Structure formats: structure tokens, C-alpha cells
């Protein structure tokens, strides 16, 4: 399977600031996704990162809060804007391979104080 890297691995941020998380894949993939896992909860899809066009957001997530870029088939960024303590979560990028198997990056643990 493809190798997925994310950075930063973790960060502690102050409320009101923004953080951009990067996701890099070692091969071209058509489908990339961003998930959030709040403390003690399961994973929830934030959006599908579309190459060359605007991301497709799930209900409850908006572009102003979670802008996403996908400049090519190996890279994507997720920004968490104007952060509040409720944004403290693990953020994960994932890819879907041609086999339809989905793999996750190592995750970014965000703490907002």
C-alpha cells in the first residue's frame, strides 16, 4: 500500500489561531479524505479533498472553518481555522486505493488551549 505521512504529528495551539495540517502520499491517488476523531469518539468524515476543485464537505463541516487544498494527486492540506477547545481532536487523512481499500495517515493530535 502507499505510504502516507502527515505533519505536524501533534501541536498545542491557542484559541483563535489556525493550524494547517499536511498530508503527503508517496504515489498518486485519486481519492483523499480528511477525518476527525474527537476524544473518546469514533472517526467522522470532514470532507473529500478533490484535486483541482473545491472539497466536498460533510454535513456539519464548512469551508470557512476547515479549508482544504489538493493541488495535485499526492498532497493535501487541511486548515483548522479560528480554533476553539472543541477542535481538540486527532485529524487523519486517508486515501482510497484502486482496490477500494482505504488507508490512514499517522494522524495529527491537536490540543487547543
Amino acid at each position, binding site marked *: 500500500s502507499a505510504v502516507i505521512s502527515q505533519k505536524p504529528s501533534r501541536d498545542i495551539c491557542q484559541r483563535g489561531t489556525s493550524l494547517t495540517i499536511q498530508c503527503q502520499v508517496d504515489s498518486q491517488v485519486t481519492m483523499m479524505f480528511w477525518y476527525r476523531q474527537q476524544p473518546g469518539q*469514533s*472517526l467522522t468524515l470532514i470532507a473529500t479533498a478533490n484535486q483541482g476543485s473545491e472539497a466536498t464537505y*460533510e454535513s456539519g463541516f464548512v469551508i470557512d472553518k476547515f479549508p482544504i487544498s489538493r493541488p495535485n494527486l499526492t498532497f493535501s492540506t487541511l486548515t483548522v481555522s479560528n480554533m476553539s477547545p472543541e477542535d481538540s481532536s486527532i485529524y487523519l487523512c486517508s486515501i482510497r486505493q484502486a482496490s*477500494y481499500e*482505504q488507508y490512514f495517515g499517522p494522524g495529527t493530535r491537536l490540543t487547543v488551549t
Partner: protein
Amino acid sequence: EDKVVQSPLSLVVHEGDTVTLNCSYEVTNFRSLLWYKQEKKAPTFLFMLTSSGIEKKSGRLSSILDKKELFSILNITATQTGDSAIYLCAVDGSSGNTGKLIFGQGTTLQVKP
């Protein structure tokens, strides 16, 4: 509304025991069911199941899908302390082949020496 339900939510066993984790689902357009193991941040892919009755096996882990009864089980035989983790079940039930995964709550497995 599409949903995935896992049971039990938590389980404590001793090394050498065999465990069975359950996942039931209700989705509009079933495409596949995936199992993951989550130890720290990133879910690690275990299996993807698309056809009923065909067992997937990897070492001490195995899984099978029943599309008639809408459930899957994950079996772990001869458990080891390294099997301690959260096991996540996810279903790709997206219309339009979007790849969106719906996750269950997870089963937390603790294996005691």
C-alpha cells in the same frame, strides 16, 4: 440514516483466549466493510470484505461478512497483549461511489497477561 453498530463496546480477556467482535450495519448502498486496529492515533487496515461467506484471514485474525443478515465478525485467536487496541468497523455505503466510510463506535479490547 446509515449506521454502523459494534458490540461489545469493551472487552477484557486473558492471553490465549479467543475473542469475537461484532459489527452490524444499515446502509443505503453497501459496497464494502472494513476492519481497522487503532492503537495510538492511526487506524491500521486489517481487512476489507465485499462478499458474503468468504473468510479473510491474516495470522490469528479472521473475518467474515453476512450480507443477508447485515453483519460481520472479527475473530482473534490465541490473543496476546499486543492485540490490546480499539477495533473499528467501517462501512462504505456511499451512493455515487464517493468512498465515504461510516464508522462504528469501536470495541476496546484489553488483553491481560
